[in-house]
């Protein structure tokens, strides 16, 4: 599909996909709310199964300076995948030039140059916070795409979390950001 459906000037589409329990819908919400803080229009949708843990789960985020007519991703600018199942679902986009960031801890290695593997889960586990892999990976996606400013995401984390969770998540975000630089 070569035709863009919207009248966008600056239009970005991101997919965050994995399995239920990885927290990707929360990552999508944080990303969307950060974009709103930056004065942009946002639509975030999600698809999930009946289980709170397991099954394909994904968040789609569209960010635009103008009106967003259609609310689903048509041509992603970046895809994050944290499971083999999610990777298989979006594999064909890599051949069309869409960068796909995958979790090399959980996903079999890919050779297409548009695939970049990061040990998201391993890194989060090593830090003693496997459950915050969603924030870590969000840091990487944000650093790679520049879809929102890192400072805005930090502000969102301070708003969304309380107490010790703020520092911990800020740390995960920073580690994710640094992963992107490697």
């Amino acid at each position, binding site marked *: *599909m070569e*035709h863009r*459906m*919207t*009248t966008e000037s600056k239009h970005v589409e991101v997919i965050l996909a994995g399995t239920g329990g990885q927290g990707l819908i929360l990552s999508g*919400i944080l990303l*969307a709310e950060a974009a*709103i803080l930056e004065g*942009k*229009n*946002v*639509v*975030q*949708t*999600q*698809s*999930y*199964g*009946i289980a709170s843990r397991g099954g394909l789960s994904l968040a789609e985020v569209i960010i635009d300076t103008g009106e*967003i*007519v*259609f*609310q*689903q991703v*048509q041509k992603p600018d970046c895809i994050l995948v944290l499971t083999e199942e999610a990777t298989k679902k979006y594999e064909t986009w890599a051949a069309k030039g869409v960068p796909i960031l995958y979790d090399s801890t959980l996903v079999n290695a890919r050779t297409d140059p548009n695939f970049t593997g990061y040990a998201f889960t391993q890194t989060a586990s090593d830090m003693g916070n496997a459950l915050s892999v969603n924030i870590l990976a969000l840091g990487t996606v944000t650093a790679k795409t520049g879809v929102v400013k890192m400072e805005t995401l930090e502000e969102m984390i301070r708003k969304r979390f309380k107490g010790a969770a703020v520092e911990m998540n800020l740390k995960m975000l920073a580690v994710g950001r640094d992963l992107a630089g490697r």
Partner: protein
Amino acid sequence: MQGNQAIAEGAIYAGARFYAGYPITPSSEIAEECSKKLPKLGGVYIQMEDEIASIAAVIGASLAGAKSFTATSGPGFSLMQENLGLAVMGEVPCVVVDVQRAGPSTGLATRPAQSDIMQIRWGRHGDQSVIALCPASVRECFTLTVTAFNFAERYRVPVVLMPDEIVGHMRENVEVPAPGELEVVDRKRPSGSPADYKPFKADEDGVAPLAAYGGEYVFHVSSSMHGLDGYSNNDPANAAWRVRQLHEKIDRHRDEIVLTKSFDTDDMDVLLVTLGATTRSGRAAAIEARRQGVRAGVLQLQTVWPFPDREVAELGRRAKMVVVPEMNYSGQVAGEVRKAVGPDMDLRRVNRYNGTIITPQDILAVMLGAR
């Protein structure tokens, strides 16, 4: 803000202070939001033992003076139907939110559909009428919820708000209307002598004032056929008057109740008739069609019942083709559109019933493809 959250916020804005419900995907966020907000405002949140009890409690609370509502999805809505009939018969204002998911039966519990259109209109036994509104964005989740309460209060009728799962779970940036920005309607209260109060004696506008239990006006409400005073009355003339009145009070205010939005319909050859999330697929398809030289416009049905037949017919007369995308197999909207545009119109259906959204490409293929 999420669509479901906007519905809860819109209800509170409209003055809702009573929620009774039973958890069901994909509507549960509305209950969760109400359980947090209503006690703060002095209102009541109560989780009942099932959907049958939920709508019953909503109706009871409304008669005690509350603006009250519940939220559910297809299976729960089916369970509510009998008691919803009492709200019609007893002319009890209330709002039911049906966040539509894919069926039949348990179906695909987390996936969207637009297949409750006919169950909302015709799912109850007996001959009667309700109002149904369908939002296409998070902002409309808020504003149409306020409208739903306003219609319920003004016409003493249950109003169904029918977002699909996509809209219910979608998050968008919305500016919440300031207090006073949107009109909020309260039901007419009786003003004459309590001894003369008749709960079903309509004013000039076809709607009777409604008292609240516990005030100076004492009154009867009945699921059985009843007279002006609410007491049982099986006389055929009385029954005919009641059934007629329940329909007429909606029919005569039809133009105030029917809400639609048009996009690029001033010069068009193709009319897309849409509701809910498929409005956005339709609008994206129309924009693309115009880029390819096909003049397409969109009519969004914000009010689904009573069906906007005159609006569809009027725009249909200016189009050579009408396309109806909807997330069901049977073409529940298309059937109504066909009645409005007549048998000779090139009417094309775009249907998905697998729990996934209709894309702009799906619509373009039908619109631009050969018949």
